[in-house]
């Protein structure tokens, strides 16, 4: 273990802004992509179900 205490860990030798700015933004972006992937899947499933139910539907978006 490299650290003696949690405050020391969070301080990152004085580079907290740079280190946590990197890790934090990356985490937010990955979670964001996961949410986008889920909503994409739900939209695609809804579209497929509608198409099966009502026959060929015209593309109204994208």
């Amino acid at each position: 273990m490299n650290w003696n205490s949690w405050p020391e860990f969070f301080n990152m030798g004085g580079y907290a802004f740079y280190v946590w700015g990197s890790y934090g933004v990356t985490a937010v972006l990955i979670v964001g992509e996961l949410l986008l992937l889920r909503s994409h899947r739900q939209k695609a499933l809804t579209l497929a179900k509608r198409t099966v139910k009502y026959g060929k539907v015209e593309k109204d978006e994208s």
Partner: protein
Amino acid sequence: MSNFNWYKYSSPATFYGLAGKMIPWFYGVAALLCVAGLYLGLFLAPTDFQQSDAYRIIFIHVPAAWMAMVIYVVMACWAALGLAFNTRLSFMMASALAPTGALMTFISLWTGALWGKPTWGAWWVWDARLTSELILFFLYLGFMALQAAIDDPRRADRAGALIALVGVVNVPIIYFSVRWWNTLHQGASVSVTKSPSMAAIMLAGMLVMALAAWMYAIAAALSRARSIILEREKNSQWVAQMVEGEA
């Protein structure tokens, strides 16, 4: 192996089912590797004698930068396969990879800026490595924008494939930029021919994080490919059967 039917797996219907089974495994392995890599990188790896703890950005920066290049090459390969054999699935895979590739490229640029400021004193410099990486980001965005702008999916596929193939020359430029030009960006920390220029535990953390990024990118691309398949094949028999089976 001669009896193995590759064409079976190039059918979107077969691929859809197979990918659906594989995705949770890739996400699971990615999560485990990520936890292990973060533990190695943030808790076990020692403070660097030169860069203090700012160097810990490497555990995100390098894996993201590697994935940005790897995903682009894989995307170009799918595009080439699609153009050569006219297989729908190949184009769908190329489209599915682009957003994740763009994300990895952005992460590498962002973490690079946050690393550059404390070590070089600048968020950004127009050095060959940084500039070619920025071009990679624009290639991804251009690919996605072009596909979104063309209504006919078959034309969109071909136009996108062309960008993907032309842009692939940028990848060796990124990779070798630190050797070909005198860059502020440091040279490769890991290479096949030389022993790595970093401590074993730092290297281990970086490699584990890189593997995690691979697994994540595969899961994300497969997941996006499934949604694209559903959108494009919604009028087909197998989608109708599957949707009715679920309802």
